[in-house]
């Protein structure tokens, strides 16, 4: 019979150093997170390079890239207006990076022994810095365009004075929470999803180890569930990237047009 294996779903998020250690004792280490960031970057470059050959009659690849750029162009134009084009580079970068790292992290590379994919966006450090970047763009653009008038963002127009006193602090808090909530969303979605995948993957293995009709039945059931959850993970990865891009565009719209 199998030994009682303890499920450790947190192990997959551990950041480990890879290769030699030329900078021992410094914070500059080449980790698995850095490696998978480079892999995500290479995948993005490959995808964009293959689709930007400017063929007159676009092939499948170019259609995919054009669809992606057109989709993001649409988000910025609909939410920010004609000026939205200026902010397309950051919205595009954030969307594509989150999308690719979510999807690459969910790929079953582990069928090759030792090749465990690491989901870059499952670390709050990464998504947190991306959301802080969005927030800084909002602050810089807002103060640049409207100077100190930017503070009227917290005060809705045509409100009675008494109500203004009440609403302004609430608006201020909801504004300051934005970088936190924006970064928390993609991080927790990936984090929770991968814990679920890990736990059910362990159930499959433990059921096989236990043997007997009951063990195999549980194992098969968990495997079917695992496939479904994996498909859901891909969907959630896409939705989270879309929500990040959409909310970034909305926040920038606040700074540009000052409702």
């Amino acid at each position, binding site marked *: 019979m199998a030994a009682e294996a303890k499920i450790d779903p*947190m192990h997959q998020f551990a950041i480990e150093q890879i290769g030699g250690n030329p900078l021992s004792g410094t914070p500059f280490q080449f980790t698995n997170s850095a490696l998978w960031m480079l892999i995500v970057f290479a995948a993005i470059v490959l995808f964009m390079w293959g689709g930007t050959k400017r063929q007159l009659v676009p092939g499948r690849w170019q259609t995919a890239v054009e669809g992606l750029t057109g989709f993001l162009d649409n988000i910025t134009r609909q939410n920010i207006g004609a000026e939205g084009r200026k902010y397309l580079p950051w919205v595009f970068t954030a969307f594509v990076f989150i999308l690719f790292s979510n999807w690459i992290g969910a790929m079953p590379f582990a069928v090759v022994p030792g090749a465990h994919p690491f989901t870059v966006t499952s670390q709050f450090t990464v998504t947190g810095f991306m959301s802080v970047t969005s927030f800084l763009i909002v602050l810089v653009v807002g103060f640049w365009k409207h100077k100190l008038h930017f503070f009227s963002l917290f005060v809705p127009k045509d409100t009675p004075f008494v109500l203004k006193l009440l609403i302004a602090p609430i608006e201020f808090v909801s504004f300051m929470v934005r970088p936190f*909530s924006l970064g*928390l*969303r993609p991080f*927790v*979605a990936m984090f*929770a999803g991968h814990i679920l995948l890990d736990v059910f993957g362990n159930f499959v293995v433990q059921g096989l180890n236990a043997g007997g009709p009951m063990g195999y039945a549980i194992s098969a059931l968990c495997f079917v569930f695992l496939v479904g959850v994996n498909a859901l993970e891909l969907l959630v990865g896409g939705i989270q990237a*879309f*929500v990040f891009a*959409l909310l970034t565009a909305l926040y920038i719209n606040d700074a540009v047009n000052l409702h």
Partner: protein
Amino acid sequence: MMDLASAQVIGAGLAAIGVGAAAAGVGFVFGSFLQGALRNPGAAGGQTPTLYIGFAAAELLGLMAFAVAMIILYAR
């Protein structure tokens, strides 16, 4: 008097109830959208950004409940 480890597990389980509440919220957002979209399919396409903003707001609270559960579970 119960020890810290069991209290942590119970607390994390209680905090995870919030995720279920967020599930109800997300279901309500999509359900309401579908209801409106079936009544006026022509206007539905333009409202998808609004749908996802509502979805993001409802989902965030569930994710926060999850984060709180994880903090309780792994706090030392």
